[in-house]
């Protein structure tokens, strides 16, 4: 291949493998400026205004319902007032009248009209009036945001490569409705939401490109190389020809990997590994089955449902969980209760200075017991065919497990009374992702039926590195000796306590890490369905004995660099075929 002109190439983190060629679509949602746009169809504009008001109301209702205990009376009062503003007869009538007579876009009129009130407030000499003006700002932005969202959806063409700052879960929901061919983002790392979802849906993605939105223009032709983390803007003919060849090669490879579908994930010397999928989106379900997954090791329920708008009720959850469990039967499905918070949007507008150390996972659920009960009941009911397990996120103390068990027992008693079917012996497990839980692995193994190691969070907490913060992202090291030792301890203690230990973080999907993980004694890996065939191939290419030796060597090393070199050397000597050549370049 000719050396390409470097000018039209941007590089970032390869987040979801695959190659796509398509037109760029710039998605700039945080543009502050509200356009004064003339419109023709005023009825449609009024209709979108009403929808945006309804949507905003729904969002606020949820915030209000969940957060009222945490907010204190004053903030609760403000939320109530915000709700009332959405119904304010005088305000809404003015806005509607102006849309109809001035024939301007609803965003513009909403902004103009509400800003008038803000002006009066901020001109007041009373200091609290300025604060009030900020609260009004919140509600104004919420309405405008909801007006825009609809517009974005209608404007996105299909078959585009989305180029944006950062992708939130809400954006993803929006994008799954159109046929997006790939993602390029300025921010985010391998474990960011955008990356996880892209992998789930098998859509190539390059994240953390920094200046993508500056250099790429709407309509530019892009080659997106999600294997090497490259984006080529308006490629020349040579580059196009080269990448078309690579796409063909990848397709060949996929066909080859597809043949492994019904083969077991077993090492050359006969060690069987349970290879499962994570499920983030319901659209993946067919994919999971097609790729020969032996059950689902992690259903991220907060992703399956779009919880940014409202929480699903028991029936809705029950139907979803049953559908998944039946589809995988007789294999097991592990449902994790809602893990909200951290980088996963809290559906509540509480701004925490340290969300990763804040109100998330089980902490949030135990403060919203009804939400937890609804979910546990739905999971229990879906367990009627005895292939369902329940898992709890962000566990950091024994008390949290005991308290949840009490609630689970209550739910069981309730269902029994109602004569509803469920698995009396349903297994309850926990995520090991907080250092305190890792340190207490021995103690936890007496309390629960299984562990699943969530490496994304565990690594960030052990190393005190925010995985989304690019200033320190180099310190986010999965081969850090402290991480390897922690994994070793968790696995050993789990085994001593006779419970199963699996891993469901991104580390399990890293081809380099797989031999080490197996060598450390893990019996089960859960990865995104799209990477599953490659992981299976890796497992089938190594000996357990060699992997054990590798793990022991790594445990005696003191720096990340040494461990990485060791792991890399192992990889080099064991994999030399076509896939790896392609992956490596």
């Amino acid at each position, binding site marked *: 291949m000719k050396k390409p002109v470097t000018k039209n190439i941007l590089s970032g983190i390869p987040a979801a493998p695959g190659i796509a060629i398509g037109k760029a679509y710039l998605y700039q949602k945080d543009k502050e400026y509200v356009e004064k746009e003339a419109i023709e169809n005023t009825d449609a504009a009024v209709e979108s205004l009403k929808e945006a008001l309804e949507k905003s109301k729904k969002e606020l209702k949820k915030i209000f319902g969940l957060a009222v205990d945490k907010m204190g009376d004053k903030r609760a009062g403000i939320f*109530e007032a915000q709700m009332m503003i959405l119904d304010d007869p005088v*305000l809404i009538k003015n806005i509607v009248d102006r849309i109809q007579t001035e024939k301007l876009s609803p965003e513009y009129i909403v902004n103009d009209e509400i800003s008038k009130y803000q002006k009066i407030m901020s001109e007041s000499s009373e200091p609290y009036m300025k604060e009030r003006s900020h609260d009004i700002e919140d509600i104004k932005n919420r309405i405008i945001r909801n007006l825009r969202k609809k517009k974005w959806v209608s404007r996105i063409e299909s078959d585009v490569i989305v180029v944006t700052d950062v992708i939130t879960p809400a954006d993803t929901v929006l994008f799954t409705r159109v046929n997006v061919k790939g993602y390029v983002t300025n921010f985010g790392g391998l474990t960011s939401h955008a990356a996880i979802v892209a992998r789930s849906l098998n859509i190539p993605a390059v994240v953390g490109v920094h200046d993508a939105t500056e250099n790429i223009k709407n309509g530019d032709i892009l080659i997106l190389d999600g294997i090497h983390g490259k984006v080529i803007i308006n490629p020349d003919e040579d580059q196009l020809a080269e990448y078309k060849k690579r796409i063909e090669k990848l397709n060949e490879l996929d066909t080859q990997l597809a043949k492994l579908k019904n083969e077991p994930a077993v090492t050359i010397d006969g060690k069987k590994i349970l290879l499962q999928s994570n499920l983030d989106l319901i659209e993946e379900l067919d994919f999971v089955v097609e790729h020969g997954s032996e059950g689902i090791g992690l259903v991220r329920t907060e992703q399956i449902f779009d919880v940014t708008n409202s929480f699903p009720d028991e029936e809705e959850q029950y139907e979803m969980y049953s559908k998944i469990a039946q589809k995988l039967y007789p294999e097991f499905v592990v449902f994790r209760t809602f893990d909200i918070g951290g980088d996963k949007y809290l559906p509540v507008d509480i701004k925490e200075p340290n969300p990763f150390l804040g109100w998330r996972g089980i902490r949030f659920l135990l403060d919203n017991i009804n939400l937890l009960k609804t979910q546990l009941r739905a999971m229990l009911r879906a367990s009627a065919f005895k292939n369902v397990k329940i898992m709890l996120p962000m566990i950091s103390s024994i008390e949290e497990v005991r308290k949840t068990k009490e609630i689970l027992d209550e739910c069981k008693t309730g269902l029994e009374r109602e004569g509803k079917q469920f698995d009396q012996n349903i297994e309850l497990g926990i995520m090991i992702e907080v250092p305190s839980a890792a340190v207490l692995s021995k103690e936890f193994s007496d309390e629960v039926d299984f562990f699943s190691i969530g490496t994304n969070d565990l690594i960030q907490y052990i190393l005190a590195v925010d995985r989304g913060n690019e200033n320190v992202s180099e310190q986010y090291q999965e081969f850090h000796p402290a991480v390897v030792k922690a994994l070793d301890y968790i696995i050993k203690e789990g085994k001593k306590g006779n419970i199963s230990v699996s891993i469901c973080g991104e580390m399990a999907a890293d081809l380099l890490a797989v031999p080490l993980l197996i060598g450390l004694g893990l019996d089960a890996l859960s990865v995104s369905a799209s990477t599953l065939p490659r992981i299976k191939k890796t497992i089938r290419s190594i000996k357990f004995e060699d992997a054990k030796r590798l793990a022991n060597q790594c445990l005696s090393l003191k720096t990340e660099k040494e461990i990485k070199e060791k792991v890399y050397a192992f990889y080099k000597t064991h994999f030399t075929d076509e896939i790896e050549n392609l992956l490596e370049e």
Partner: protein
Amino acid sequence: MIEKKVKIINNAGLHTRPAATIVKIAAKYKSDFYIYKDGLKINGKSIIGVMTLAAEKGSELTLVFDGEDEKEAAEEIVKYFEEGFGEL
């Protein structure tokens, strides 16, 4: 039409919670309801309007009710002011 002068007597003044309550009471009645303060005329059925009023303890407002049930509306709202929004 009924016109009433009222005084803010609670410590916190006309903050968000009482503003919301006033609008909620006003919404129950068919009569128009306006609040006058320092030359400003505010529609008392509009929460965002009432929120623009900076009314500290001791400030005076004029309330105007106009419509078929103005008497009842005036009675209930004036009473709420006289009770210091239940914060005395």
